[in-house]
Every structure is written in C-alpha cells, then in structure tokens.
C-alpha cells in the first residue's frame, strides 16, 4: 500500500488517472550487503555467459557441449546427464524442487531471490552501475537531468544508451548458445548464416533486456511481477525481512535537534536509506511490496550510524516476531534461530527428498528401453497352416550414444516364432537380433506366430537383451489373441 503512496502519491500532484514514473537515482553505497550483491551478480552473470562454452565429451554420436537444449532432436544434455522427451518427469521434478525451494527460501530469508538473484534485479543493477559510470552518482545524475539539452548531455545520453544496448545484445546473444553448438553458432552468427530464429531470439531478448533493465526497472517488480504477490502470502512473522526499527529510530531528528533534551530516536533523518534504494521507497514507512530486500538501505544506514557513533542495525534484517520482542525491550534474536526452525527444516526435507529421489532414479535408469504395443486392426490373423499370428509394434530406445546390438525374444508363449516387417514368414525365428543406432528409437512391426491352442488370449512377455557385453535388459508384457469358435 504505502509503496503506492510513495511512488504514486508524488505523481498525484500532476493529477489525472495516469501517473508518470518518478525517476529514481539511487546513490552508490558500500557495505556488507553491497559486496554480497556484487559477488552474486558476478557468479550469476558468469554462469549465464560461460555455461554454453563448456565442453563435455560424449563420444562420436552426441554433441560435446556440456549444457545443450537440442530442440530439433528433442534431447537435453546436462553434463553427463541426457534427458529424453519421455523422461520429462525429471523436468517436472525440477519444477517441484523450484516450487518447494521458493517456499524454503522465502520462509527462511524472505525475498532474497528478489534482492539478489532475480535476473531483473541483476541486470537492472548492472545498468545502474553503467549509468553511474557515465553520468556520475545520484547528485550528478540529478543535475544532468535538470541541465538543458546541450552537446554534453546529448553525448552522455547517447553513450549511456549505446552501452545499454551493447549489454542487451550480449545478453540476448548469449541465450541462443544454449540451443546450438556454441562455437559453430558464434561463427554462423558473425558470418550472417545462422538460422533466422537465432537472430529473432537475439532481437527479442535484446529489446526486452534494454527495455526492462534500462527503462522499466523497479516498475517490473512493483507492477508486472507476480512473484512478490505470491511471496507476501508465504512470509510469516518469523521470516526475515528488511525492517526499520522505528521503536529505536523515532522520533527522527536532524543534527542540531539532537542536542536538545527532547527524547530523540537514532534516526538522523539523513535520507541515505531512501537515496540508495533502487526501487525508490522509504523503508521507514514499514514493510511494503516495493521492497525487494536488497538490503542496500542497511548498508547506507549502518554507515550513518557508525558516523554518529550509534550501534549499527537501525535498519536490519529481522522477523516481525523479533520486532515485537525488541520493541518490548528484549535482546535481538540471533539470525540462526530464525533460519533453523521446524518450518524451514520441513521445507528443506521435502526439497532434499525430491532431489535425492531424482538422483536415485537417475542412477537407476536403464539406457535401453523396450515398449511393445499390440496391433488391434486386425487383432489376430488366421494362417493357412492352422496357426495364428498377432502383430506388435515394438519400440526399442537406445539412449546410449553408441550403436547397440540387441536381441528381442519371447517368453511364455510356447512354439512362438517371430519376424519383422522387413523379413518374412520364411525368416521366422524364436528371437530377432536388431542393431539400434546410437541415441535412437528403433520402431519395428513384429509378427508373432504361434500354434492355435485354445481360444483364450494368452499373456506373454517380450524380453530385450543387449548383446554388446554391457548387461541391460527390459521386459514388456503383452497379449496374444486367438480366434474364437468359428
């Protein structure tokens, strides 16, 4: 609520139904959280830009890019893990983990994702630094804004937006490397013969990066993003949020007033916390949706408190519960008590269980898979020799990146022989040997002929065995139908 008051109350003076964005010129700040933000920014950007260039040797039949989303062949490569479309449940598992992870993170450290790791935050932060580098810090930016349009201002504006655009192009350009062999694609991109969709993707991402990071900034967090709405429902009175300790800071006082005998709080009303806030809010008005808990106001206020020789932490990470306790005079609660509690343990347990479950399944999964479906049109065929024939569609998935010879055999159907649509009745045998290409699905129509014994459908099994010395098998149960009384 008060976000709106702050952001839009000012604009209200202009009147009308629609409010202009009030420009924000966050001041540079240094401190623990700022350095943490630098570190996380460095790591996330490094991961984003470097990942597609990592190599991973998978032999001659698979790409050697460590992380590759191969849409054309519907494969996803992640280091030694290769995901096939039918294994999409791993992706579903990751989504579940992301969901529970969100619970975990939010109930523990509040909106830490928003403040540190969200791409919108990371890129906006990057853009703010570029802006400061070119235009100077807050005051210089304010002056420049007021200055009349002259050659210097034009030069600065052009330089700034050119720099923004370069970052945007690099951002969009890095994205496409996840979807194709990076070195090849890089060459093609430069030479101008990459796929149209690559250029299109780069174009779209360049635009969104420039627009969202260069222009929209905090408005994305406040008006567009659904995340804060969901998160505010997940916070409880024991989640860490950035809080101004009004019981300690109020009433505010400016330098001279502090000398008087009136009772005064620690807040010296220097506005440093407001000046550094990238979303332009005043944290002293209480918790609000515009706050991404980046903690830059903590750094700013701590600096001030040190200067006036007061204890740090007038603005601090705290839980609502601690706030109440501290207001009543209790000592601050150590952070670990907030972080390690039953609720976070529960979420962590769930999160880890899903993760371990997936790891276990990854370890267990066979890279050879058989699935058999019975042909139903017709269900069976009466043969001239008195036997009956059923047809099956047999799919053999070889998920290894090498060709594999396999044997398909039948169990539980006495006297049965088979052949596939490439062979014929004369080549019928008790088992078929098939070579399945690397990383491929071999689909064969297989005919099974058996003596006619009784009328009831019989259950039997197809067994798939690898013949290359690496033991692997799979079994699928199907039905054999026979004609009824004619």
């Amino acid at each position, binding site marked *: 609520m008060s976000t709106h008051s702050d952001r839009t109350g000012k604009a209200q003076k202009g009147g009308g139904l*629609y409010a202009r964005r009030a420009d924000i010129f966050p001041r540079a700040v240094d401190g623990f959280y700022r350095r943490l933000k630098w570190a996380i920014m460095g790591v996330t950007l490094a991961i984003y830009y470097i990942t597609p260039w990592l190599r991973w040797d998978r032999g001659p039949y698979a790409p050697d890019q460590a992380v590759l989303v191969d849409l054309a062949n519907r494969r996803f490569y992640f280091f030694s893990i290769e995901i096939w479309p039918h294994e999409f449940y791993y992706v579903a598992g990751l989504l579940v983990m992301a969901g529970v992870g969100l619970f975990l993170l939010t109930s523990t450290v509040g909106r830490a994702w928003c403040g540190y790791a969200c791409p919108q935050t990371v890129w906006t932060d990057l853009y703010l630094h570029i802006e400061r580098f070119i235009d100077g810090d807050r005051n210089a930016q304010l002056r420049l804004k007021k200055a009349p349009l002259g050659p210097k201002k034009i030069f600065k504006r052009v330089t700034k937006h050119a720099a923004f655009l370069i970052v945007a192009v690099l951002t969009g350009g890095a994205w496409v490397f996840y979807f194709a062999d990076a070195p090849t694609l890089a060459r093609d991109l430069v030479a101008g013969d990459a796929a149209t969709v690559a250029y299109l993707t780069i174009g779209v991402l360049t635009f969104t990066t420039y627009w969202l990071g260069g222009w929209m900034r905090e408005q994305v967090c406040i008006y567009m993003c659904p995340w804060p709405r969901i998160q505010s429902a997940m916070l409880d009175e024991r989640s860490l949020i950035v809080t101004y300790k009004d019981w300690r800071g109020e009433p505010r006082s400016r330098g001279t007033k502090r000398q008087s005998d009136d009772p005064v709080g620690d807040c010296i009303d220097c506005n440093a916390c407001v000046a550094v806030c990238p979303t332009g809010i005043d944290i002293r008005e209480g918790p609000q949706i515009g706050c991404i808990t980046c903690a830059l106001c903590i750094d700013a206020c701590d600096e001030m408190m040190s200067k006036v020789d007061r204890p740090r932490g007038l603005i601090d990470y705290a839980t609502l519960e601690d706030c109440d306790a501290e207001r009543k005079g209790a000592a601050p609660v150590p952070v670990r008590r907030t972080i390690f509690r039953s609720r976070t343990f529960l979420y962590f347990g769930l999160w880890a269980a899903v993760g371990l479950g997936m790891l276990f399944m990854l370890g267990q999964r066979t890279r050879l898979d058989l699935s058999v479906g019975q042909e139903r049109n017709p269900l069976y065929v009466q043969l001239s020799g008195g036997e009956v024939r059923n047809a099956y569609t047999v799919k053999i998935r070889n998920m290894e990146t090498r060709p594999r010879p396999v044997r398909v055999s039948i169990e539980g159907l006495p006297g049965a022989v088979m052949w596939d649509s490439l062979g014929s*009745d004369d080549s019928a045998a008790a088992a078929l040997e098939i070579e399945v290409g690397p990383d491929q699905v071999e689909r064969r129509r297989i005919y099974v002929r058996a003596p006619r014994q009784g009328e009831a459908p019989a259950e039997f099994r197809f067994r798939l065995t690898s013949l290359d010395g690496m033991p692997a098998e799979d079994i699928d149960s199907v039905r054999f139908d026979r004609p009824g009384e004619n």
Partner: protein
Amino acid sequence: MSTDHEDKQIDAATGTEFKGHEWDGIQELNTPLPRWWLWTFYATIIFAIGYCIAYPAIPLLDRATAGVLNWSSRGQLEKDVAAAEAERASVTEELARIPIERLDPESPLMRAAIAGGAAAFRVNCVQCHGSGAAGSKGYPNLNDDEWLWGGDLSAIHYTIAHGIRQPGDEDTRMSLMPAFGRDGMLSSEEIEDVVSYVRVISHQEQPSQSAQRGATIFANNCAACHGANGTGSRAFGAPNLTDPIWLYGGDRATLNETVTNSRRGMMPAWDGRLDPVTIKMLAAYVHSLGGGEQSANVGDPVTSPDAPVAGETEAE
C-alpha cells in the same frame, strides 16, 4: 483512517484521493495507473488495427476481408503440401526407377515406400479391404499368408496394377469357376457330396459316404484347377481348399452357394488410376503386412541369420 464523508476526500497517510465508497470500513483509493500502462494499451489498439489490415479479420456478409498480405490458411496449406512434395521428390524418383522386385527390403527406400503405401491404402483400398487390411467376406484378408495369385512383391504389384477380372484390362487376373449348379453341370445332390468332400479335406467334418462320393466328383470336375489334393493353384487363382482360410466362408451353405453359382469377385485395375510409384508403394505396404513372400528373383537375400538363437523361448 478518517471517517469524514465529503467528496474529494484525501487519505492522510498516502495523500491519495478516495474514490468515495466504503465497504465494511474499507475505502478505495483513487490510485492512478502508471502512464506506461496507458501507452501499452494504446499500443495493443494500434497492433489490432494493423493486424486487421494485414490479415483476414473483419467478417462481411458472405466472407471476410482478405487482408493486404493476402495470407490464408488454405494458401499456407498449399505451400506446405508443395514443400512436402518437393522433399519427397527424391524418394519418388528412386521408386520410379527401381523395378519393384529389386527393392532392397532393408533399405530406407523400402521404409519410405511402405509408409507411402500405408497412406495410399487408407485412401484407395480400405473401402473393400478394411482399414487394417483384414478384409471381410468376399474381400481377401491381406494380412494372412494365403494368396490366390501369389504373395511376393511382383505378384502383389501385378494384382494391384491389373486388378481382378477387370473388363478393359487385357492383363487382368482372370479365373472363371463354372457355376456348376446354375449351369446344370452338377445336380444338387452331387453338389452336397462335393461340399462334404471339401469339408473333409479342410478338417471341418469327419469322412462320410457323401464325402466319398464327393471325392470322385471333385476329381472329375474340380481337380483341374484346385489340384488333385485340393491345395489350389496360383496359376489359375484357385484357392487352397485344405486350409482354414476362406474368402467367402467354409460352412456348408456358403460352399453350396459357391459351387452352385460360382464367385466372380472383382478388383479394380489401378494402372492408370494411380501413378506407377503409388502402385509400387501399395505393393510394398501390402507385402509388409505380414504375409508377404520372398520374390524368387530378388537380388539380396531376405533371410536373417536368426537360427542360432532358436529355442530361447523354451527357457520357461
């Protein structure tokens, strides 16, 4: 929160004007929307207008506006079809060149032919042979191993190309079983006897006196085409009478009807109606249904060396 009920009332905490209504003590603030929101809205309107001009959009009485880009879903389809055909051109050319009996059963070309044949079958053949090619009374089951005229690729190809008893096609498959009853060649008792005999050799009835009499009648009238043992002859398209497969049915009444009036099933000659490549594809598909036989003169051997693993199924 203030409880004053004036118009144009301002919320003290935010400095924002109230809308002027209240529910259960909750009042609505007249918070302005961000301006970019408005511009986004305008942009969607402009986009919609542009779209309506560029693409078919506005319904008129009997059609819709065409749009300046002249795009249509039908036009898109035609383009896609043309593209697909261009892609298939190489397969089509290969198939046109290679004689059917020279098709390598293991080759990708054969797979392409089978796939193409399956599609052509769905359009041209299902009306009689059924979608699974299982046929019905009078329409042969193409899945089984009984072939009146031969079941290798070239025999099937020939049958499809020239049809069965097709007037106007000199090369058509032709066999004419006499209508023994209608034409007075056999009496109804004799027909009953020969039916008994046929049901004995096809293991449907126990030997009887009637069947014994029928054996003689069979030898005199039927063996010329169906063979001395009744196993049929592909040269005449005469069915094997000793197996459990019947085109019209093996019960007494049906056999009686068959011998009395004869059967003259027909199949269109597809030469001229379908292009040669499609006919080849159809032959490949029908051959792949499970009953296909090896061509006598095929270049590559078809038999796969599976024999050494025989007996595996007895494991259980």
